[in-house]
């Protein structure tokens, strides 16, 4: 009873700010400008398939790169003494204290044709290379911005693994690589899956990074949706339809992931 009362404000919050907007998206996606039911907009989404594919592809690459950087880093971190651990975590978190837009602007000035990197390369007679307005720049921006969201969940799960369990693995014949594969990895999976979720979902729907670092040629779904609501191709219904399809895709991918991620105790990661 007490719990229910305490939960009430959150319930209201969830209804007003999550459920209602979701229902509104669904409503606009399935109606035309006069409010009549139609499937036109939802079927129109099909014409943007290449953009969807590119968004999923870039988000996937970024997520994998984040994972490849974050996992070994977390494993190295937990082997260090606690003082160094907290300092290193601080450094990981440091960029997050700065505004997201500013950080991305910084990359623009670094990567531009007249930017810092090309200037330095120019001194040794190389370049200039076209780095800004490429897919690579978009992936870089995503990895840079979302990496902490991969490191933190993996680290926090790994640090809780009982050290004596690792000793038990060594006792039973595992060198440190086998210990990692047979014990640390399975036990850190929940962290890996929440890290993947926390990187993949914002990466697939970003529009700032792609526009600032990808230029006009690397449009992503996020840009497409933004254009329907705020841009000159103003079309709320189409925007809602694209959003709905995106949500369904994300939900599908996460459900598939969780098929692997949910362990015996049914720990869900999402």
């Amino acid at each position, binding site marked *: 009873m007490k719990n229910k009362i305490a939960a009430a404000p959150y319930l209201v919050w969830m209804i007003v700010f999550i459920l209602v907007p979701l229902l509104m998206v669904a409503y606009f996606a399935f109606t035309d400008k006069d409010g009549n039911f139609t499937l036109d907009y939802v079927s129109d989404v099909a014409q943007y398939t290449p953009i969807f594919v590119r968004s999923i592809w870039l988000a996937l690459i970024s997520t994998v790169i984040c994972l490849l950087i974050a996992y070994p880093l977390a494993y190295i971190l937990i082997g260090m003494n606690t003082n160094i651990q907290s300092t290193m975590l601080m450094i990981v978190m440091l960029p997050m204290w700065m505004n997201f837009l500013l950080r991305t602007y910084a990359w623009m000035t670094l990567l531009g044709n007249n930017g810092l990197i090309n200037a330095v390369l120019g001194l040794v007679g190389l370049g200039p290379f076209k780095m800004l307005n490429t897919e690579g720049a978009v992936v870089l921006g995503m990895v840079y911005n979302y990496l902490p969201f991969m490191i933190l969940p993996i680290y926090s799960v790994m640090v809780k693994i009982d050290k004596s*369990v690792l000793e038990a693995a060594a006792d039973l014949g595992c060198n440190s690589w086998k210990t990692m594969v047979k014990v640390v990895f399975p036990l850190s999976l929940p962290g890996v899956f929440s890290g993947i979720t926390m990187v993949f979902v914002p990466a697939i729907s970003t529009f700032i990074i792609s526009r600032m670092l990808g230029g006009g040629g690397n449009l992503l779904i996020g840009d497409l949706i933004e254009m329907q609501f705020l841009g000159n191709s103003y079309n709320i219904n189409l925007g809602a339809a694209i959003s709905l399809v995106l949500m369904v895709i994300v939900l599908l991918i996460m459900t598939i992931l969780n098929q692997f991620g949910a362990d015996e105790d049914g720990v869900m990661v999402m």
Partner: protein
Amino acid sequence: MSENIVTLNDIVVEFDGERILDKINLEIKDKEFVTLLGPSGCGKTTTLRIIGGFLNPDSGDVMFDGQRVNGLPPYKRNVNTVFQRYALFPHLNVYDNIAFGLRVKKIPEKEISKRVAEMLKLVNLVGFEKRSINRLSGGQQQRVAIARALVNHPKVLLLDEPLGALDLKLRKEMQIELKRIQEQLEITFIYVTHDQEEALTMSDTVVVMNGGKIQQIGSPVDIYNEPTNAFVADFIGESNILHGLMIKDRLVEIAGSQFECVDSGFGENTPVDIVIRPEDITLVAPDEAKLGGIVESVIFKGVHYEMLIEGYDFRWIVHSTKAAEKGASVGISFTPDDIHIMHRMKDNEKKEETAENEE
């Protein structure tokens, strides 16, 4: 020399400048059941970790079969461990936990399933194969930990208080079972416990430790009957430990009276500690003995009565199948055989010194 399967030479371990193990010397023979016995915090687990390879000594040598193995990682040592807090793999079920070591060694699955089944029978967990570790009681987890180590048939098995979480009945059963396994599989057991009864009933050799030092090494009978100092005597069982004076060989002064005894070689007029076991004392009429006192309490302990006798400046513990009357005046009698003379403990001397300094 080479019949010693494990040898520790002058092992020293320090944590934060504090000496945790102080020159541990230990020789363990093949197929021996050795127990490290001592109070909590005395360094038993640390000693096991040195042997298992989880910790390297600050100085001293660890030898296996006469070969120095300092720095050799645990997975290269033919040793398995039953950890004090089990350290089971939480992501694996009972079967997979026990099979873990065999799978690492790439033993065929058919053989694995045979050996795991044997182990499950041994530790009384048949039918629990698929059970998740998190849904086992402490005692069941402990038995999985024993099975997981034993299934590998190591040459040396390290057991860190492996029966601590079991209730008395199961503990007694497992004690017998472990002893049987050790003899049948001919494995060297290095067993840690703080329970002196467990140590005395199971071991070939008992190593009594305190404060990072070995106090005594010997057979259970030796340790019980001939403790080398007051700490061992006290730790091994309830006992009467008195200060005395060795007048000369075979004559000792206890509480102001002189007694014949069987010990010699302590020199003349040497302060010593004396142990007289509660069950060795006979209560007699006050005028039939040199020492005596008033019966302060009588408690029935199942087989015998435990009585406290308030003497002149010492309170005696006496075990007897016959109860004396509370408040009665009694004489305390023992034979020369029952008097165990020990060198006065260094720690005692230290304490006395500091006490003197404070005055």
